[in-house]
C-alpha cells in the first residue's frame, strides 16, 4: 500500500506546553489508522496541523510522497484532506444541503444553484450509505446525523483522506455501529481514514493500525490484529489500567432525591418526560439507561431547574425544590456534571480559575467583603483542583478554550465533585475521557457513594451504567419502564427494556 500521509518530526508548542514533540506518523492508502492517547496527549493538535489550522514549529508533511506546506484549511482541502472536528461547526438554522455547500457554493451566474447542491448531496449520500436528507434543518436532526453531515461536507469537497476527531464520543451505541459501516464503505471505495478515539473496543473493531501518543511523543505504532485492549491501555497511559470497576456492597440510606410524577416538554414543546417517578438514596448510585432522546436530557434539566416543570415534584432531602431557580437547587446541595460541556459546563472564554467557581461563585470561601471575589483564594482553589484531578494545563490562568476536550471535562468533574454535594447528577461524565481518566472518575463517583452521598448517573454507555450503578432505571419514551437491581442486570435484559419491551416477571 502506498503511503498517502507522512508527517515527519512535527513539533508544536503552546505557551507553557509542548503539545507535539518530534512526532512522526505515516498513513497508508485505504487504511483506518487510529490515533490513541491520553487527554491532552496532542492528538487534536497534530490533526489540526495536518488540516492547516495550526502551523507546526518544526517538521514537514508529505502528501502522496510530495512535500507540502499546509498553511490553511483551503490548502488541505485542495490536497484532498478533510476533517470532522471534536466539536461540530454547523450552522443550526440552515438546511443540510446549505451547510454542505457553505464556502464552496455551486453558482449559476451570480445566484446560488441550490438544486444542483441538493442533487450532489443526495448522490454522495447514496454512494457511501450516509442516508442524509439534504432538506432537513440541522437543528432538527440528531447528533449522529449532524456528524454524517460533517462527513458529507468533507466528501463534497473532494476529500480522499478523512480525519475524524473523536466522532464516537457523542454517538449512541447504535449510531456508532452505523458509523462503523460507513467507515468501512468509505475505505472500500479507496478513502483513507485517520480516527481519534478513546474507546478501545472501537479501536479493536474498526482499525487497521494504531499509533499511540503520550505527552506529545509517539510511543509506538501497532498492527491492530497483533495487539489487545490491555496492551493498548498500558501503552497509552504508561501503567496498568484497571478496566473493571471495584466496589463494595452499597449501604443505601434514606432518599436524597425524590422525583414524583414529573412532566416536562422538549424544545419543540412536545412532552418529553411523561410522568416520571423514582428516588435516589444516600449511599447508592442510580443509573439511568436508555437510547438517546427518550427524555433523559429533559429529565435532568427539569431536576436541575434548567427546564420548566409541567407537573409533578422534586424533593431534595425531603425539601421541595420543584421549579426553583438553578441557584436555589445548587445551594440545596445538588452538583451537576452536564452532558454538553461547551454549552453548559464552561464559559470557554473565562480562565480556568473563574470556571472553577462557576455555580459556586457566591460561596463565602471565595468572597471578600461580601460582594467582592477573593481572587488569590480562587486561584489557589483552581490550582488544587488541577492537581488533584490531573487536569493537564500549563497553569490555571489559561482560558478553558485552550484545554483539550478531555481536560475540559476533567475540570468540570473536579469542580462538581469537590463541592461535596448531597446529590451528584452525572450526565455522560466520562464522555471524551481516556481510559486512565475514566478509571479515576469512576473511583471518585464510587467514593461519593461510599461516603453516603447520592449519585444519579445518566449514560448512553451500557457498560458504564452496569458497572457503576447499584440500581438501574431504564427510560423509554419519556417514562421509566423498569428499575432493576444492577446485580440482576444483563445487557440483554436492559436492551429489551430500552427498546420498549416488557420487563421479565421475576422482579
Amino acid at each position, binding site marked *: 500500500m502506498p503511503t498517502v500521509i507522512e508527517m515527519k518530526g512535527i513539533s508544536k508548542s503552546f505557551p507553557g506546553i509542548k503539545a507535539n514533540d518530534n512526532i512522526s506518523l505515516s498513513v497508508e492508502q485505504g487504511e483506518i489508522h487510529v490515533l490513541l492517547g491520553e487527554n491532552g496527549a496532542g492528538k487534536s493538535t497534530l490533526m489540526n496541523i495536518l488540516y492547516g489550522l495550526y*502551523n*507546526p*514549529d*518544526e*517538521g*514537514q508533511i508529505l502528501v502522496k510522497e510530495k*512535500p507540502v*506546506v499546509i*498553511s490553511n484549511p483551503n490548502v488541505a482541502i485542495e490536497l484532498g484532506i478533510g476533517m470532522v472536528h471534536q466539536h461540530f461547526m454547523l450552522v443550526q438554522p440552515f438546511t443540510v444541503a446549505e451547510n454542505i455547500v457553505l464556502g464552496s457554493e455551486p453558482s449559476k451566474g451570480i445566484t446560488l444553484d441550490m438544486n444542483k447542491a441538493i442533487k450532489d448531496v443526495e448522490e454522495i449520500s447514496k454512494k457511501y450509505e450516509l442516508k442524509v436528507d439534504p432538506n432537513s434543518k440541522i437543528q432538527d436532526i440528531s447528533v449522529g446525523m449532524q456528524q454524517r453531515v460533517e462527513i458529507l461536507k468533507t466528501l463534497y469537497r473532494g476529500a480522499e483522506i478523512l480525519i475524524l476527531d473523536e466522532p464516537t464520543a457523542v454517538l449512541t451505541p447504535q449510531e456508532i455501529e452505523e458509523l462503523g459501516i460507513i467507515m468501512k464503505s468509505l475505505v472500500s471505495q479507496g478513502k483513507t481514514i485517520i480516527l481519534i478515539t478513546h474507546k478501545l473496543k472501537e479501536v479493536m473493531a474498526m482499525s487497521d493500525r494504531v499509533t499511540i501518543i503520550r505527552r506529545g511523543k509517539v510511543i509506538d505504532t501497532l498492527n491492530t490484529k497483533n495487539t489487545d485492549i490491555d496492551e493498548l491501555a498500558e501503552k497509552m497511559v504508561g501503567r496498568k489500567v484497571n478496566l473493571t470497576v471495584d466496589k463494595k456492597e452499597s449501604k443505601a440510606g434514606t432518599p436524597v432525591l425524590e422525583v414524583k410524577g414529573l412532566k416536562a416538554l422538549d424544545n419543540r414543546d412536545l412532552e418529553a418526560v411523561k410522568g416520571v417517578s423514582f428516588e435516589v438514596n444516600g449511599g447508592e448510585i442510580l443509573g439511568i439507561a436508555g437510547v438517546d432522546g427518550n427524555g433523559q436530557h429533559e429529565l435532568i434539566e427539569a431536576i*436541575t431547574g*434548567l427546564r420548566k416543570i409541567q407537573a409533578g415534584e422534586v424533593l431534595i432531602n425531603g425539601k421541595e425544590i420543584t421549579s426553583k*431557580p*438553578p*441557584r*436555589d*437547587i*445548587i*445551594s440545596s446541595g445538588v452538583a*451537576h456534571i*452536564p452532558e454538553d460541556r461547551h*454549552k*453548559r*459546563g*464552561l*464559559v*470557554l*472564554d*473565562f480562565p480556568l480559575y*473563574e470556571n472553577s467557581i*462557576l*455555580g459556586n*461563585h*457566591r460561596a463565602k470561601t471565595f*468572597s471578600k467583603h461580601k*460582594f*467582592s*471575589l477573593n*481572587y*488569590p483564594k480562587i*486561584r489557589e482553589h483552581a490550582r488544587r483542583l488541577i492537581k488533584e484531578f490531573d487536569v493537564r494545563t500549563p497553569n490555571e*490562568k489559561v482560558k478553558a478554550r485552550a484545554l483539550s476536550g478531555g481536560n475540559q471535562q476533567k475540570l468540570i468533574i473536579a469542580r462538581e465533585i469537590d463541592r461535596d454535594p448531597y446529590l451528584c447528577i452525572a450526565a455522560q461524565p466520562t464522555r471524551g475521557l481516556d481510559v486512565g481518566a475514566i478509571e479515576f472518575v469512576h473511583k471518585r463517583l464510587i467514593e461519593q457513594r461510599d461516603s453516603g452521598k447520592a449519585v444519579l448517573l445518566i449514560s448512553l454507555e451500557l457498560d458504564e451504567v452496569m458497572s457503576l450503578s447499584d440500581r438501574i432505571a431504564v427510560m423509554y419514551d419519556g417514562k421509566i419502564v423498569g428499575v432493576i437491581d444492577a446485580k440482576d442486570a444483563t445487557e440483554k435484559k436492559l436492551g429489551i427494556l430500552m427498546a420498549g419491551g416488557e420487563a421479565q416477571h421475576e422482579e
Partner: protein
Amino acid sequence: MDLQKINVQKSERKENLDNLIKQLAYPLIAIITSFVVGGLLVAAFGSNPIVAYSAMLRGSLGDITSIGETLVITTYLILTGLSIAFGFRCGLFNIGAEGQFVMGAITAVWIGWGLKGLPPFLHVTLTLVGGALAGGFWGGFVGWLKARLGSHEVINGIMMNYIAVQLSNFWVRTSLNQDGKAFSVEIADSAKLWRFSETFSVFSKTRLSGGLFVAILVALVAYYVLNKTQKGFEIRAVGFNQHAAEYGGINVKNNIILAMFSAGLFAGLAGAIMTSAMQYRVNQLMGFTGFGMDGIAVALVGNNHPIGVIISALLFGILQKGGPMMQIEGIAKEVVFIVQGILILFVAANFVRIMHDKYKINKELKNSLNKREGK
C-alpha cells in the same frame, strides 16, 4: 504567610503586569500606525501631514484653554464609552447610549431648575444622580424588553433614542422653555458643578469641570465591579455564554436588565454633567448629539476595558477638538474622520495582532521551505 506564598503572589503580580503591557502594546502600535497611514492619506490629497498634525495638536493641546476643552469632550466620551463597553461585556450592544445621554441632560435641567433653595453640594449631587438614573431607566427599559420579550436591544435602543430627542425637545419648547427661545431655562446656581475656572484663573476660558474626576472615578468603579465582584463575574459570564451562566445559577434575565441599567446610568451621567457643568441648560436638538455614537468607537478602541476607555476617550477628545484647527489650516476636516476610521479599524479589528501573526506564520513557512530545500 510563608515565603512560598509570597513568592507566588509576587510572580503573579509580575505576570499581570506583563499581560497589561502586552495588552497595551498592540493598541499603542495600532494608534501610531493609524496616524502614519492617516498622514500618508493627507499627503495623497496634496496637503502636508506635518502641518495637519501639528495643527491638530495645537488645536487640542496647544494651550491651557484648548487642553481644557479637549478634556471637556473627554469627560463625555469616557462615560458614553463606558456605557457601550459595559453593555458589550454582558453581550449587549447599547446603541441607546445616545438617548440615555439626552434623558440625563434634560432630567438634570428639571432637577437643577425645578428644585430651589438647596445647599449646593446636595443640589449638584441630586442633579447628577437624577440625570444618571433617568439614563439608567431609559437603558434598563430596553434591557427589560430584551429579557422579558426577547426583542432586540439595538432596535429598541434606536427607537428609544428618537423618543428621548423628541421628549427633550418637547420639554424645551414647553414646560422648560426660556422666553420662546430654542433652549431651556437655566439651572439654579446651586446645581452647577464646580468648574476649574472658579479656583484656577488659568482655566478661566474653559468649561472644564469636576465632571472629569467624576467620570474617571466612575470608570475605576466600573472596572472594579466588572472584574472583582460577584456581580461582575455574573455579567461577564452572561456575556460570554448564557447557557453556562444559567447552569451556574446565574439569573440571565436580571443580569441583562442590570447591565443595561448600568450602561444607561453612565450615559445618563454624561448628559447630566453636560447640563450641570458645561451648558447649564439644554438646547433644542436638531438631531443626535453624537456623544452616544462616539462612545461606540471609544469602547471599541478601548477594548471594552474601563481603563482602556479612559485612554481612548482622551485620544478621541484630541481628535475632535483638534479637527477644526486643521480646517483653519486648510485641511479638510474629513481627515479627522479618516484617522478615526483607520484607528477603529486597526485597534478594534486587532489589525496589528493579526498582521503580527501573519508575519510569524510566513516566517515559519519560509523556514520549513528552506529546510526542505536543504534536504
